[in-house]
């Protein structure tokens, strides 16, 4: 049974619609990321779940209960804020104990619970300090502690790692995953960082313009993006998206773009002739061999691999990814090919839907993407 569900939820601020017609079912114990660029409605969604905003229409359920009009404190949730929102005038101990105090946990029981949480998060030495005397990472752990100290039904995390430096972020990411496994609680995690979403989540809800674009496990979001937006948003460097047209020819469907023609198998029934978009992941662009004539425009060396940007004469630029020892000179002509099994076809328009069946070699692609990350 779904632990958290949004049913036709809409949220408008005046004439601006922040979230429209959101349907989302999150299972018990699942780690779900709400992912999208700034202003996509992910934080509004989380705040509605927390009770800090109220939906304009639709129902939000936690467990079996509709919580639309339930105060944040009565929803049995805990939340970690991006700014941590530690109470500056309270010590670490008082900060962690505050939710207990507000929920009427007897005074005598609080210290033991605080101590247990502090130990879990390596905060025992810091209990008497004020938030200002802590480093960013420590503050972050206190914020987590305040959420963990009682055993809420759902954890809400609003970009909790975005204020940490890169190294600490990687560390805390692993810690959070570990914590989630140990607690087995439902967690809803808001982030604009696809790496966080990909590495931590059971499922990712990709949002854009207040609309849910895709809700699926990370591998599926990567390998079978539901539409052009998801395809372009997920993956670094981003998927090559080439505008062109589909045509039905003797051998089946063919995509024709500037300087290239590509047979596309497995098109669904909704495919029609006319404007369309071809998506190719950088790892599926074969550089150095193939029918497409290009020139090398840019090479970014990252050590273990090189990101190569090539330009089709009179056409678009494509990004490819090759092992670190392969180099070309800038301007050098080079032939390119496309790994035909792994192409994506989308209908025209910024959120044009996916037209071909999910890619077969999903596992292979995922491993590659992990190697990059």
């Amino acid at each position: 049974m779904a632990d958290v569900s949004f049913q036709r939820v809409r949220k408008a601020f005046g004439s601006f619609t922040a979230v429209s017609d959101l349907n989302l079912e999150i299972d018990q114990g699942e780690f779900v990321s709400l992912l999208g660029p700034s202003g996509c409605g992910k934080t509004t969604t989380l705040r509605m779940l927390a009770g800090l905003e109220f939906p304009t229409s639709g129902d939000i359920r936690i467990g079996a209960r509709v919580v639309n009009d339930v105060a944040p404190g009565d929803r049995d949730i805990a939340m970690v804020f991006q700014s941590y929102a530690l109470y500056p005038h309270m010590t670490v101990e008082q900060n962690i104990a505050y939710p207990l105090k507000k929920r009427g946990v007897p005074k005598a029981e609080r210290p033991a619970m605080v101590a247990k949480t502090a130990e879990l998060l390596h905060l025992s030495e810091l209990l008497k300090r004020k938030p200002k005397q802590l480093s960013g990472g420590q503050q972050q752990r206190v914020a987590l502690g305040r959420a963990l100290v009682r055993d809420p039904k759902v954890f809400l995390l609003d970009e909790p790692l975005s204020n940490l430096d890169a190294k600490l972020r990687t560390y805390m990411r692993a810690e959070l995953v570990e914590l989630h496994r140990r607690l087995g609680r439902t967690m809803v995690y808001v982030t604009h960082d696809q790496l966080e979403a990909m590495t931590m989540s059971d499922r990712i809800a990709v949002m854009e313009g207040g609309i849910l674009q895709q809700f699926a496990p990370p591998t599926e979001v990567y390998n079978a993006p539901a539409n052009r937006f998801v395809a372009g948003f997920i993956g670094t460097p981003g998927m090559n998206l080439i505008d062109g047209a589909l045509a039905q020819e003797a051998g089946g469907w063919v995509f024709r773009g500037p300087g290239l023609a590509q047979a596309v198998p497995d098109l669904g029934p909704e495919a029609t002739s006319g404007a369309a978009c071809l998506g190719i992941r950088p790892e599926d662009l074969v550089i150095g061999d193939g029918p497409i004539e290009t020139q090398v425009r840019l090479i970014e060396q990252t050590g273990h691999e090189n990101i190569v940007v090539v330009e089709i004469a009179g056409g678009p630029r494509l990004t490819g990814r090759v092992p670190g020892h392969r180099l070309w000179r800038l301007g050098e002509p080079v032939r390119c090919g496309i790994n035909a099994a792994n192409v994506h076809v989308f209908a025209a328009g910024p959120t044009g839907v996916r037209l071909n069946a999910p890619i077969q070699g999903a596992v292979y692609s995922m491993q590659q993407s992990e190697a990059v990350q």
Partner: protein
Amino acid sequence: MKLRSILFNLFAWSIVLMVAFPLFWMLVTSVKPQFELFRRPPTFLPETWTFEHYARLLYDTNFLVYFRNSLVLSTTTTIVVVVIATLGCYSLVRFRYRGRESLAFLVLFTYLLPSVVLILPLYLMLVQLGLSNTIFSLVIAYTTFALPYALWLLRSFMAGIPEDLENAALVDGATRLGAFRDVILPQLLPGIISTALFTFILSWNEYLYALVLVNSDNARPLTTGVMNMLISSFNIEWSLLMAASVMMSVPLIIAFAFLQSYLTRGFGAGGVKG
């Protein structure tokens, strides 16, 4: 470098001197016997020290009544203003409603009018309400001009408190009022203290409204009371006046001494960092 620091020190000390000398003179005059006051050349330190002026003020005049009036008046005004301003700025900062900004501006607008313009309508209103000649009428009058400024002062403090703090308290199980008490108020404390001090000083030193609205000795505050008692067209009782001034300054000095650290902390940090 050395010269610069000497010049800077000279400059700073000359300003200090300019500010401090009248205070020093007030103190000295209040303990000089009457016959020494107008001697030429003047004596910097009194040759004979006397506290007779203080004694006369306390025993022979209405000074203590005025003092009590001022104390009651200023304290009440401060409490009223701080309570309204705190809740008001909470509303102005945290809630969204139609006309919020214009309301905030309108409040300030009353502050822009010269008090002379407001004083007559206010007087007539207070008479109609049957409140003329009471301390309470002054509380109302002072609130009208202290509140707008207090509201704006506190509003900036309030705006500096991250909304997430309050949201966190709400999620942690506090009611809105509980979150206000547990999280907002402690953060706002430096602002509240600055505002309270400001309001207290304003009401303590106010003269014009007190002159117009109150003319019975039972309700007169120190400013008009002392003036009325010691300054007449024919004579100014300098020693008594200075003694009264010293005693008028004492409560403010005490308040400042206690709250100074809060005041500087308030203007410095504001508790914005989460």
